[in-house]
């Protein structure tokens, strides 16, 4: 990569060092202090025409502001100063080369200043020396397109292990998880193949290797059974149970590579699993006597929904978040009344995870009968979660009284379906398959080792046992303080 600036900048640095650039950048480009911001707002005007543009620059030799509409060129001619810093992005313009030039040292200084300016600035990825070498040596780039099998892989059935295969397919096709693993973000200190996250990381490499033969997930199964002993044997495996146990083990193993000090942020785990899958479920218990509200928020990885009755996912969610009267048999001690009272309970979603997983409770075990409920439940390709949010409920309650517009109406809570796990057959003799979205509009059916094309219609018409939705728009994390 050619990021060594130009001979003119090199000569300048040899004479004066990088300090002039650093100070100029800190003051007039990145504004690392209040004072600097004030300066930039009031005095960054062209010294010749007095206007704030177009494209303000400052002379690197002397602090002299000039616009690109001829006035830096005038200054260059008059003073023989050839280097100018663009005040928006901090790039260096050389009037002798007649071009912007990029110098590694300057870029690093600029990045440091930007870090001081904002806590989490956006930084485009730049390859370091080793990575640049590797990129130069290996010129071939593998592109993922809807016409190739890259990213798809069949999974060998290890003897009734379709419950595992379908969950692995869903996880591998989780967009944000894929970005994390293909970006090799997991740094591990555990040794000797004991870490499930490392195993999943290898799995991603296998899926994108271009190989076509089915994979055998024996190491994965062993790791999960070792670390989630309660799963205890394959005979009674339920894909949902396996999914939750897998997330739990992954979550625990994510901590292998992390320093103790950075583990918790605001008392909340920030491992990749929690970042993607954890949401907050709010439960409001209202005392019928005093109307006192007791609110608790619990983390969740998925939402289990009753399927008897409603015919759509939205209807299931509507019922899930409906206020429920807890009868006289379930009195709860009200902290205000200091007595056991009847109350109503209502669930709502306080925070949404990036991946919303829904579990349709199709398997019913009771003392009388074990049965599978095959009732059709429609689910959409695009889902808006706004109506089930705690903030929305609050807003609706308020707007009834005040006729105000609901708060939080600018939140974007849209989700897109990306994986569906289906259970085929009866309770005793069943089989799991998964539909996964490889890219937008490109669906595949994963039946153990067999991967076949599928249409969105086919996916939406399937029975549905586990439904996986990905947030459509990802927001930047920011501290509101």
């Amino acid at each position, binding site marked *: 990569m050619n990021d060594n600036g130009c001979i003119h900048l090199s000569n300048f640095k040899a004479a004066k060092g990088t300090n002039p650039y650093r100070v100029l950048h800190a003051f007039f480009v990145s504004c690392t202090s209040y004072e600097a911001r004030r300066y930039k707002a009031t005095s960054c005007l062209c010294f010749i025409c007095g206007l704030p543009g177009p494209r303000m620059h400052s002379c690197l030799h002397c602090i002299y502001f000039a616009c690109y509409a001829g006035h830096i060129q005038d200054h260059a001619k008059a003073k023989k100063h050839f280097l100018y810093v663009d005040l928006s992005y901090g790039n260096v313009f050389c009037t002798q080369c007649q071009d912007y030039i990029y110098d590694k040292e300057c870029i690093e200084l600029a990045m440091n200043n930007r870090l001081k300016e904002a806590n989490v600035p956006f930084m485009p990825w730049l390859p370091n020396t080793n990575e640049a070498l590797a990129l130069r040596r290996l010129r071939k780039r593998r592109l993922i397109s809807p016409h190739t099998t890259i990213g798809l892989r069949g999974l060998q059935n290890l*003897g009734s*292990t379709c419950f595992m295969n379908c969950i692995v397919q869903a996880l591998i096709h989780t967009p944000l998880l894929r970005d994390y693993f293909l970006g090799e973000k997991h740094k591990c200190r555990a040794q000797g193949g004991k870490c499930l996250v490392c195993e999943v990381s290898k799995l991603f490499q296998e899926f994108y290797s271009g190989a076509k033969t089915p994979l055998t997930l024996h190491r994965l199964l062993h790791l999960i059974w070792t670390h989630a002993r309660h799963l205890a044997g394959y005979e009674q495996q339920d894909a949902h149970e396996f999914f939750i146990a897998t997330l739990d083990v992954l979550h625990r193993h994510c901590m292998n590579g992390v320093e103790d000090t950075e583990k918790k942020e605001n008392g909340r785990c920030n491992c990749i699993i929690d970042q993607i899958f954890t949401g907050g479920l709010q439960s409001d218990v209202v005392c019928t006597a005093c109307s006192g509200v007791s609110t608790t928020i619990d983390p969740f990885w998925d939402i*289990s929904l009753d399927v008897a009755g409603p015919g759509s996912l939205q209807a299931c969610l509507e019922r899930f978040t409906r206020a429920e009267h807890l009868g006289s048999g379930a009195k709860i001690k009200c902290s205000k009344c200091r007595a056991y009272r009847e109350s109503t309970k209502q669930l709502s979603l306080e925070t949404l995870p990036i991946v919303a997983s829904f579990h349709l409770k199709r398997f019913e075990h009771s003392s009388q009968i074990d049965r599978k409920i095959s009732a059709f439940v429609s689910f959409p390709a695009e889902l808006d979660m706004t109506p089930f949010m705690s903030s929305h409920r609050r807003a609706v309650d308020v707007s009834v009284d005040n006729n105000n517009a609901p708060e939080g109406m600018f939140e974007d809570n849209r989700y897109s379906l990306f994986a569906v796990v289906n259970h085929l057959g009866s309770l005793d003799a069943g089989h799991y398959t998964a539909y996964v979205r490889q890219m937008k509009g490109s669906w595949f059916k994963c039946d153990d080792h067999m991967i076949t094309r599928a249409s969105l219609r086919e996916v939406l018409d399937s029975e549905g046992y586990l439904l996986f939705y990905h947030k459509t728009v990802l927001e930047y994390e920011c501290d509101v303080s």
Partner: protein
Amino acid sequence: MNKTISSELSMSDLNVKFFEIMQSEANAEDAANFIYENLFEDVTAGFVFEFHHGMKTGLTDLLEGEKEDDDMHKIVNSPECDVFGFSLMKKTPDSNCSCPNCERPVSATRFAPHLEKCMGMGRNSSRIASRRIASNSREPTSYAGLLSDDEDDADWAGGSAPSERRKRRLKNNNNRKPNKLHNGNRNSNGGHSADADGGATYETMTANEKRNLLMQICGVVSEHTKKLCTRSTRCPQHTEEQRRALRHSVLEPSTPEGAAEEAGSPPDSSPSSSCSSSSRKRDRHRAPPKIKAKRERLSPNIRE
């Protein structure tokens, strides 16, 4: 600072007169346009700079490289084949894999049942084991209820499910021959690859293995069955005294006690079974997803 800046208003003037100036619609529109143009210019410049930087430094070329020839990976569009071109009719090609637990080659299609036995786990095997211990024991059975997995299980299963499973368990209990269950020993033996079933006597273990095992299980040898007790180290069926005595005799190098002739320990002698119930509970408390208290656990049987 240079005095040639031709600003009509000083900063403090602007602060004082801001609202007055903005009263005029024309001024407000000018200001809005000014801000918009500035933003637009900045954003555009950002794109242009990124592109220019990529081209000038060679980064774009470096990242884009050359497109790999993807003829090899084209999806096969045929009703008889899957996307890789494998026939849908053909049976699963079998292969061998090496068991991570016992390191022996196992047919991939039979790996899961193998692993279940190899690890000495399984809901059934652990329950069968605790049941067997309970029924084999001459000690007062009033403790059995406390120890049984079932109680915890009922809790774990939401209190509603067990009837069907209990039947199955009983059935399995009758069907399975004890020596078949001994496969589970391999784990507790700490990787004894000796194929012999039922080798888990203190005699066949190294001092280390004995110590490890006794850290996790009660280990008292039943007079009646000559088997090791595989419950937790605080198992109420044996006294602390008994445990101390056993550890003394077993871990003392000079007096190796021939604990049992050929008696293998029950299938769940692997340490896990004795602590599985507690770890299960812990997991459940930790795992966020159990949302509704009243939620039933739903698990279908999966068989192909």
